């Protein structure tokens, strides 16, 4: 199993796509291992859906090639690629029952009715909808429709499962429930999956690796933990998770002079010259608040306090352009109230910087 998992299932090599003079995708390359779930994350218009649609054969591309199981499928139309897809919009065929929808791909492949029925029942059981086989799509909730769409996509035993923001039309509670279901089923079926989303929590919680895209290019692809803790670019650092942008300056030893502290510049950060004004990127959990006003600490005033369950988020005015946000355990935060004067310190050992 482990050797199978290390095999390269999908290779996207130097894909480019242009809309007139606008480049939607530039030299995009990605490799996915067998059974791996990779998410593409990025702001609107970054090209993540374009990648998925090119892989699925739904959109053309101008340069590059696509290999699946070592076979070049670049010129194949979508109906010859054997890739299951779940769309953002509800896509169940309205004239067919749930069971007929699930069986559709098998019927196209001329699989016998007996085998089709068996397979659709198995898949409907997997998505906990075996009792709704005779229902029509208009009798199902949004979450149920997407679960049926997932079963339908899996029925053809796809080489790759493509998920194009399948949860974005659902309400918050159902989203969490279905994304966990997707991950469970993906692990159970060991289907290589490409998941496109703009919701970082969604991407980070279910994926083996997450790729962050910006302006048609892949900025970084890593496991969620590495992506969050060791971002390779300022864009990734500011896009993934919450990041404070605090004005800083580079000193003579290549360190970052920020508030009343001096901290090493991250090796992954862009180079900066002495005296250059920059923004340091600091995560809320890398800041601490206390009432000990020593020389390193920066005094500030608590302006906002938001209870988030186990954590509390505090907004502190340091006299810079925007509030600096600090995450504390809710127990510790009980000692601090809005209007309190506090001392703020950065606990990071190194910092990324962005242009000021």
């Amino acid at each position, binding site marked *: 199993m482990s050797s199978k998992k290390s095999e390269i299932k999908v290779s996207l090599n130097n894909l480019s796509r242009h809309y007139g003079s606008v480049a939607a995708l530039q030299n995009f390359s990605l490799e996915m291992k067998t059974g791996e779930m990779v998410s593409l994350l990025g702001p609107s218009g970054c090209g993540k859906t374009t990648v998925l649609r090119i892989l699925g054969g739904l959109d053309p591309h101008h340069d590059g090639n696509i290999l699946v199981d070592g076979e070049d499928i670049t010129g194949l139309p979508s109906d010859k690629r054997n890739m299951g897809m779940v769309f953002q919009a509800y896509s169940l065929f309205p*004239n067919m029952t749930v069971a007929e929808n699930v069986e559709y*791909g098998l019927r196209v492949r001329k699989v016998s009715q007996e085998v089709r029925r068996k397979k659709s029942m198995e898949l409907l059981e997997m998505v906990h909808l075996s009792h709704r086989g005779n229902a029509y799509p208009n009798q199902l909730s949004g979450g149920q429709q997407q679960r049926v769409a997932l079963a339908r996509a899996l029925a053809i035993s796809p080489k790759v499962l493509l998920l194009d923001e399948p949860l974005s039309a659902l309400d918050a509670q159902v989203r969490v429930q279905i994304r966990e279901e997707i991950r469970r089923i993906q692990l159970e079926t060991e289907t290589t999956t490409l998941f496109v989303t703009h919701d970082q929590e969604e991407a980070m919680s279910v994926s083996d690796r997450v790729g962050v895209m910006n302006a048609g290019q892949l900025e970084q692809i890593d496991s969620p933990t590495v992506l969050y803790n060791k971002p390779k670019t300022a864009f990734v650092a500011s896009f993934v998770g919450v990041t404070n942008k605090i004005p800083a300056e580079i000193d003579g030893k290549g360190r970052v002079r920020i508030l009343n502290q001096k901290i090493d510049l991250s090796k992954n950060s862009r180079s900066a010259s002495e005296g250059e004004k920059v923004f340091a990127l600091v995560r809320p959990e890398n800041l601490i608040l206390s009432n000990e006003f020593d020389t390193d600490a920066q005094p500030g005033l608590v302006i906002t306090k938001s209870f988030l369950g186990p954590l509390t988020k505090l907004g502190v005015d340091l006299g810079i352009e925007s509030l600096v946000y600090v995450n504390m355990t809710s127990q510790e935060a009980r000692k601090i109230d809005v209007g309190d004067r506090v001392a703020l310190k950065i606990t990071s050992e190194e910092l990324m910087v962005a242009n000021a």
Partner: protein
Amino acid sequence: MGAGTMKSRIFSGTRYLILGLGLVFFIAPVASAIEFSLRSYGNKGHTMANYSWIFQQEDFFTNITISLKLAVLSAVITVVTVVPAVTFLHLEGQRYKRIFEFLAILPLVVPVVSLAIGAQKAMPLFIQNSQYELAFFYVVIAIPYTFQSLNVGLSSIPLKTLVEASRSLGASFAKTVTSVIVPAIRSAINAAVFLAVTLSFGEFTLTSLLHWETFPVWITRVSQGNVLGSIALSMFSLIGAWTLLILVQSAQNVQKNRRSKSQVEEMEEATA
């Protein structure tokens, strides 16, 4: 009696009055025409003679048959050409949609004489010599209505997503059209077919200009010497068209009821 109840009674009364006036406006001319068609020359009371006169006319069955054949052929051409064309327009030609919407209403404004001469010249010779060429012209005349009906039907479904879902599951475009799109817009197609059938069945001007004889042209010719007979013929055509309409509607209702029944059964099963 409360003010609310009073208001609701007045509203209800007005509603029935409007409905009654509408019915009188619709029924009175038809009833008068039926009564007139049953009269006899020389005021000898009411009789079915004018209706039996229809069936005694030479070429009655020939002409009604050719009109029915042309109507069916027009419907088939509409389904085979207009449905895929409008579907393709929705999928690939969104940027040209306005142009096509404009082109689709042209048959309404182009004089029939221009259409007759121009369109006939464009036809291959072997079709020009056949009366079945009329079916192609009827399809063109019906386009302003059939296009709109299909346009609305296709706009009401997530067409692009359905096509992409079907294609990604391995279906060819033809299979997608027959298994997914056509069933999803069945009522729009039924409406387009019905419009094509009724327009073809009743078309007179273009057919007459091209010197072909169909049922409406035949009615005009034979009724010139018999006023009461011509009214009987008009009533016969009207009742024929209504029967056709009722048959199409009943077929749709049977289908709808069957589906609703299975949905209700499913709901009962799900809630049990």
